[in-house]
């Protein structure tokens, strides 16, 4: 199977994702520039962290106007997996592919540290490698990771089991301790913590591997491989 990693001007985790997929998950992966207009040939799309367009104005607000976004929207609509991490999550909310938005952390500061997450839904195509309720350690590194949505949206998120990861010790003020959510169809996940930074013991944890392994399992079990 083949992953696409999108790269926007100002993205800075695209190589981290690329390396994680290539060296650790050992699947095909290619960087796709923001100017591209097609995602043909890919089985899953990863949107990296960083500061697209400097995160000026609002995180993700300018990136979502990029030429690749219509292709991304179509890709998401087709039901294939889309994972946005950190700035990728912010871009997905700005692009309307996920509900809610990400505000400044309550501390109003950037925070980089390990957080313990609880797997709140082990049925999603991004989390099937984990057990329901499993505790995992992933690093966060963000200034705008405070997930906000209105009460009605939150009710829907809960009712549809869209909340995949929750913080055990809310670091940023997110509604309902949300660390990662999917869209209603379940094929678009946005999460603030960085699974790609936790794929090797030498970097402190390999708890993040499961996210990518889940995607691979999902694609391969469906037997549909776009090449």
């Amino acid at each position, binding site marked *: 199977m083949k992953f696409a990693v999108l790269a926007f001007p100002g993205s800075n985790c695209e190589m981290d994702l690329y390396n994680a997929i290539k060296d650790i998950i050992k699947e095909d992966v290619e960087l796709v520039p923001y100017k591209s207009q097609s995602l043909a040939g890919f089985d899953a799309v990863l949107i990296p962290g960083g500061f697209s367009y400097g995160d000026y*104005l*609002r995180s993700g*607000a*300018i990136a979502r*106007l990029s030429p690749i976004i219509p292709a991304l929207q179509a890709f998401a609509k087709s039901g294939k997996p889309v994972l946005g991490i950190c700035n990728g999550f912010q871009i997905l*909310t*700005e692009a309307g592919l996920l509900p*809610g*938005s990400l*505000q*400044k*952390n*309550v*501390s*109003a500061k950037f925070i980089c540290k390990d957080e313990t997450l609880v797997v709140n839904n082990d049925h999603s195509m991004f989390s099937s490698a984990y057990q329901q309720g499993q505790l995992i350690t992933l690093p966060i590194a963000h200034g705008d990771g*405070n997930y*906000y*949505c*209105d009460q009605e949206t939150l009710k829907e998120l809960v009712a549809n089991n869209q909340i995949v990861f929750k913080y055990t010790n809310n670091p940023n*003020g997110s509604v309902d301790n949300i660390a990662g959510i999917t869209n209603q169809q379940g094929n678009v996940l946005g999460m603030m913590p960085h699974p790609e930074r936790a794929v090797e013991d030498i970097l402190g944890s390999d708890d993040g591997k499961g996210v990518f392994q889940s995607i691979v399992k999902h694609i391969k079990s469906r037997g549909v491989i776009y090449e």
Partner: protein
Amino acid sequence: MALVKVYVNYKKSILNPEAQAVNNALQRLGYEDIEDVKLGKYFELTVADGKSKADLDAEINEICDKLLANYNMENYHYEIDETEAAK
């Protein structure tokens, strides 16, 4: 040329951590009569002449919806100031 002043503010229901931080700082500095602080963005767009008022309104609304404001969290309003721009 028209000068368009756009104000983007957080919706009422939303707690803005930055405004909160400013408010806390003011309290610490002893400005106890400051009861609330809101913090938003203020844009000035210089727009070339040649559009009707209706077209200009349409354009500004589009720009705000697409880029300047996030409808989940923010409201906006704007004023068109034709005299300022002339200066």
